[in-house]
């Protein structure tokens, strides 16, 4: 196969010491960026751009960017699992079970399954990128507004279903997120909504600010509220670092499923790592034989989503490298980097710059391996975070969150938002409303609405557009099944279960 000859040449290029060093540097930097809440890979790459143009050739720069891209995905899960502070919106869902695992003394296992799952998914996605890029592009392009709308509806419903606790409480959280998503500029009509003239709200509430507020700040508030009631410190022991045989067994299938799902979602330019991770979580809960453990520290709930968000990063490169269409914010920055080097992207990229594309793909393999080597030994170091007493840990979380949020837009208003949302998160926690659906609602709300309206504008008001295509129709049907099947099962059970008791 031609791909394999090409990838050999790519490896020959990427294995040069200089490029290996760039891959290592990128991977290390990416991990650090992922650990810091707020700073994401797209911001980091755009900060680096002016320097790379002067210092290194395009191949070296893209190798480093690839490392940052994947490294951030690795790092993001660390703070999520240990201190419930998601560094990126794509690791929000990891907080549900990852943090619980850490509380149960399985922090080492959670970090390991995340790291190995990420490695596995990154490798699978890179491999898929190599051989499936062409067919996947036409698949991605077949997604129009109606298909995206149906996909968003499906993800919102599945997340509401997985939220744990009472379904109506999960629905409330989703709706809260959706209504928060209404704030700001309406991208279809160009009208400002609910901003009250505050310029910082023109662009809506930043998902990362909301995620850090809801998870990290409310965690601290909640912990402080309980401090006095606890006779002794609630310090948890890090527990044994290694994954048990049982944990390995429970992780492998989710890694596979997460990789496949993540890659497919990543290829779609309108979706992304956040949707991929949420859907992977929903999938794991659906197929699990013990769904009741989810939300209480099920390792599948970490393994699946972490694999998915990494695989989606690989998937997002497909439209970027084949068509020059970025599938994510990071993709957009990488596109800018291509342009900065005077490289024309688009369908001719592979033809005109095969060394660059295959070198990048080869370095993604290498970068992934480096990340695993870099991160597994660090697990032992990271879990020591758990030994820090609350009196030190809480201020640390608040400092880290505040710094991270401020670094996002350098806006004081964002800090008010952070703590305001933190208080809302505290109230939600207090009354046992799930937090993750709020983030998904906020992240997907604007997209959901935009795609809905695009579909209707394009069809000139004809509603049948939503069931006109097989993809859209089946996604909506699946959603309906998600909602109706549990109700039907309950109904059937109550009918058959109640009968014998009747006199």
């Amino acid at each position, binding site marked *: 196969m031609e791909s394999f000859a090409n990838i050999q040449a790519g490896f020959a290029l990427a294995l040069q010491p200089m490029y290996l060093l760039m891959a290592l540097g990128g991977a290390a930097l990416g991990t650090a960026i992922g650990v810091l809440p707020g700073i994401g890979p797209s911001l980091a790459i755009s900060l680096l751009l002016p320097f790379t143009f002067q210092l290194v050739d395009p191949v070296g720069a893209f190798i480093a960017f690839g490392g940052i891209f994947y490294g951030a995905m690795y790092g993001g899960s660390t703070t999520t699992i240990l201190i419930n502070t998601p560094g990126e919106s794509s690791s929000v869902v990891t907080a549900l079970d990852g943090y619980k695992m850490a509380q149960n003394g399985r922090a080492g296992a959670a970090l390991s399954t995340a790291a190995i799952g990420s490695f596995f998914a990154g490798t699978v996605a890179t491999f898929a990128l190599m051989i499936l890029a062409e067919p996947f592009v036409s698949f991605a392009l077949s997604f129009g507004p109606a298909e995206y709308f149906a996909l968003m509806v499906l993800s919102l419903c599945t997340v509401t279903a997985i939220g744990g606790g009472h379904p109506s409480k999960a629905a409330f959280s989703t709706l809260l997120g959706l209504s928060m998503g209404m704030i700001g500029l309406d991208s279809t009509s160009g009208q400002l909504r609910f901003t009250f003239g505050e310029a910082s709200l023109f662009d809506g509430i930043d998902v990362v600010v909301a995620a850090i507020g809801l998870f990290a700040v409310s965690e601290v508030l909640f912990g402080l509220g309980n401090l006095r009631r606890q006779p002794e410190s609630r310090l948890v022991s890090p527990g044994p670092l290694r994954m048990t045989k049982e944990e390995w067994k429970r992780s492998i299938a989710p890694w596979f499923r997460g990789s496949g799902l993540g890659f497919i979602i990543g290829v779609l330019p309108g979706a992304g790592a956040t949707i991929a991770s949420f859907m992977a979580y929903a999938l794991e809960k659906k197929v699990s034989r013990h769904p009741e453990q989810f939300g209480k520290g099920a390792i599948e709930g970490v393994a699946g989503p972490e694999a998915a968000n990494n695989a989606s990063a690989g998937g997002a490169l497909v439209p970027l490298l084949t068509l020059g*269409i970025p599938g994510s914010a990071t993709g957009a920055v990488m596109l800018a980097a291509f342009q900065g080097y005077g490289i024309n992207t688009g369908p001719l990229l592979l033809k005109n710059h095969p060394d660059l594309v295959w070198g990048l793909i080869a370095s993604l393999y290498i970068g992934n391996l480096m990340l695993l080597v870099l991160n597994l030994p660090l697990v032992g170091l990271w879990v020591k975070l758990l030994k820090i007493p609350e009196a030190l840990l809480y201020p640390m979380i608040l400092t880290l969150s505040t710094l991270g949020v401020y670094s996002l837009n350098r806006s004081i208003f964002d800090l008010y938002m952070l703590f305001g949302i933190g208080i809302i998160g505290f109230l939600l926690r207090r009354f046992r409303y799930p937090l993750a659906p709020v983030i998904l609602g906020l992240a997907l709300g604007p997209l959901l609405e935009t795609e809905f309206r695009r579909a209707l504008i394009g069809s000139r008001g004809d509603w049948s557009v939503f069931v006109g295509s097989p993809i859209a129709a089946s996604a909506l049907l699946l959603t309906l099944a998600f909602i109706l099947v549990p109700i039907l099962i309950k109904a059937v059970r109550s009918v058959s279960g109640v009968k014998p008791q009747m006199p």
Partner: protein
Amino acid sequence: MRNRLRTNFWLAPVLAAASLLHTPLYAQDVPKDYPNRPIEWIIPAAPGGGIDLFGRTVTRVLSEQGIVTQSFQITNKPGAGGAIGMAEMVQRKGDINTLLGVALHVHLTPLLQGTPHSYKDMTPIAKLFAEYAMMVVRKDSPIKSLDDVVEAIKKDPGSIKFGGSTIGNTDHLTAANLAKVSGVDPRKITFVPYTGGESNAAILGGHVDVGMGGPDLIDLVTGGEMRVLGVASPERLSGPFAELPTFKEQGYEVVTETWRGVFGPPAMPAAGVKYWQDALGKMVKTDAWRTELTKNQWVDRFETESFPATLDREHEEFRKSLIELGLVAK
């Protein structure tokens, strides 16, 4: 003499304090060795778009050519059609160390979205170059020419799905103007708004019939994925665009220019404005800048003194066009 000295000695701090009270702290003087601090260049868009490329290219050429030795610090302030970048700039009244690289959003965003700031709230420095919109179709589209598009919308104005950037923006205006010059009510056309590169995916996937975009679409055109129906420039462009027909030569009087320019904060001291006009004036004469213009299909439209008047004229034109489209109330 001694007396005067003493008076001065006492008077100086008083005067200084009085002047502080009188003129706000931010109204800095322009020092002789200006710029003596790093210059912050605000890009009112996310990394990766045309405005971003513009800002990064200008600062790079200014530095590489040694025209400005002070370093540039680039800050992306994206969001709300450039309104957030403008709001940030307005806050920096009188600050000589900040520049903003802008585009047409200084007109369109306040007109369309009712955001509080427009070009009038900042100090125009220079207009640098223009980009022209293109109308494209995917390679296997049944539409072969602008005439095909016009014929279809004459029969049924809403039958063609146009796709491009947000409603009321240049892409929309190009489609609307094509309708207008063909005697079709521009309000009745179907225009699906997209952001970023999404419209390219929609064009390729056949989710819109006719797409609009800037010169960056050329990669997809030379790659054979898209065909160009017309370029909305006053005359043919150069390089790979030389073979592409304009709207005008096909009989449709449609020109859509998107310029890029540099602004200072409100009340920027005249000496600061002069410095940047001179620096940019030097830059546009360099070969390095010429190369960038050709590479990116940017058409030189360097303008300094007349820039404010151009802005006023354009603002009225845009207002008129948008009123015609029913997007802005009279």
